[in-house]
């Protein structure tokens, strides 16, 4: 195991976050705050409770998930895309690091950043609404597991993308709609029956539902199923990454 190698990649990536602090931390915090102001405080005060939870508090898990998914994907995809784009990837490819170590370095850093952001947003939410966390250990586990899974997914996008626009397409065109339609702002029980069924094909539903359960002990879907779905997606990403490195896809001719 090349621990120094993993640490070098990890520290390099974290340094990138500090360099771009404004972009990395401030902008998601500001945009999430806006959601809280508009949906939590302004509109939320006129909405009834959902499952016995005030609307402002109800949307917190979903909004954290939104940032967590977007940031995990963009951090990890950018992290591996930039060296490919600038050519500095040669150094990582010629170094005595295995692909698992490369992934731990890049994905670990991306996931760390997203988890830190998730916690910052959680703290920011406190300024707008009152909430409690019923299962803190589960909450943190969900946060970490989701961050790791979607950072892996982002890593795949970063290897696949051959231009900056492709880096943006997936988070913008796929993840954002899935999160908005995945029950961030409503309980899926509120949908017509046919849409309830269709919604179940949206993987983000399971993430938000499970995460909300960790907060308030209520969920649309059983927590076991939520955890199971994350695990399925995690495994899928790992299999794809193993394939990427075995074949050298877009990394090694």
């Amino acid at each position, binding site marked *: 195991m090349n621990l*120094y190698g993993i640490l070098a*990649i990890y520290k*390099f990536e974290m340094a990138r976050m500090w360099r771009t602090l404004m972009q990395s931390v401030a902008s998601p915090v500001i945009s999430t705050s806006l959601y809280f102001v508009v949906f939590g405080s302004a509109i939320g005060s006129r909405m009834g409770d959902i499952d016995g939870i005030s609307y402002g508090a109800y949307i917190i898990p979903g909004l954290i998930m939104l940032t967590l998914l977007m940031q995990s994907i963009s951090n990890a995809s950018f992290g591996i895309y930039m060296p490919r784009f600038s050519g500095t990837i040669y*150094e990582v*490819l*010629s170094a*005595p*690091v295995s692909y698992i170590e490369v992934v731990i370095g890049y994905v670990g850093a991306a996931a760390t950043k997203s988890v830190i952001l998730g916690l910052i947003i959680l703290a920011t939410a406190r300024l707008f609404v009152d909430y409690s966390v019923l299962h803190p250990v589960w909450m943190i586990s969900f946060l970490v597991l989701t961050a790791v899974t979607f950072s892996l997914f982002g890593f795949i996008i970063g290897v696949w993308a051959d231009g900056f626009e492709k880096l943006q397409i997936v988070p913008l065109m796929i993840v954002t709609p899935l999160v908005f339609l995945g029950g961030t702002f409503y309980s899926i029980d509120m949908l017509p029956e046919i849409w309830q069924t269709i919604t179940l094909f949206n993987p983000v539903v399971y993430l938000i539902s499970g995460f909300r359960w960790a907060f308030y002990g209520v969920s649309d879907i059983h927590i076991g199923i939520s955890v199971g779905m994350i695990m399925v997606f995690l495994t899928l990403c790992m299999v794809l990454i193993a394939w990427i490195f075995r074949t050298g896809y877009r990394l*090694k*001719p």
Partner: protein
Amino acid sequence: MQPDISVQNLSKTYGDGFQALKNVSLDIQKGEIFALLGPNGAGKTTLISIICGLVNPSSGTVTAAGHDIVREFRAARQAIGLVPQELNTDSFEKVWNTVSFSRGLFGKPPNPAHIEKVLRDLSLWDKRNNRVMSLSGGMKRRVMIAKALSHEPDILFLDEPTAGVDVELRRDMWEMVRKLRESGVTIILTTHYIEEAEEMADRIGVIRNGELILVEDKATLMSKLGRKELRLHLQAPLEELPPELKDQPIELSEDGYELIYTFDSQQEQAGVALLLRTLGELGVEYRDLQTRESSLEEIFVGLVHHD
């Protein structure tokens, strides 16, 4: 003695069907400076890239420092430092950080004293807190070399190290390469500048269309393929070449003032003596003479254009 780098029957065909290397075999001994010459697209960079792990081989095996580059990639790669052709640098990083990063990546614990030494040797010490993007092209090249040396490699690959580099830096680099060799580092360099190979290399390999067409000791190569030229400046011009000299490899210059005799450097003595004697007998007087050995460049051009 076991070679430091051993390439056996290495071939590479890229996805688009282009065959970049054809059954290349090559042994490089510990501590030697080996120059790989060849025109653009001949396969030099592909060969280096395979040894360093940037490109997958199609067939064949490579060992570096006695370790198979695929099965024992950690041990093999730890022994290797690579300075690629392109100036690929992390623009936003500071010089000290980017060089320290490389050391960590290659599995070595931090050693500020070594990093300092490398930076001082490459005249980068004053720039250690500068961002890479603020450096000139030549300085960036030095940073790339510093990165490659950060983990104290036993084998150093320099892919076109002096392309686009000014004369001063080129001299510095040659000096550095010599010092590294004295410390036992094996050096493989590719170059377009024959002058560079001539100046530094112990052995020379010529690659053409993916085939290693020649590997030879530099001195042997020069003497084997080298041509010498003897120019005689005459007292009075000749109208034509005397018939006694017509079957010899001699030319008369247009103005008639110069006789140019070309010969293989190995059989020089006999030919020259005979020529001078003949000229004496013919009463052709000369006021000056000079000999010139053909450069590696001429040898090289002769080789790669020979079908």
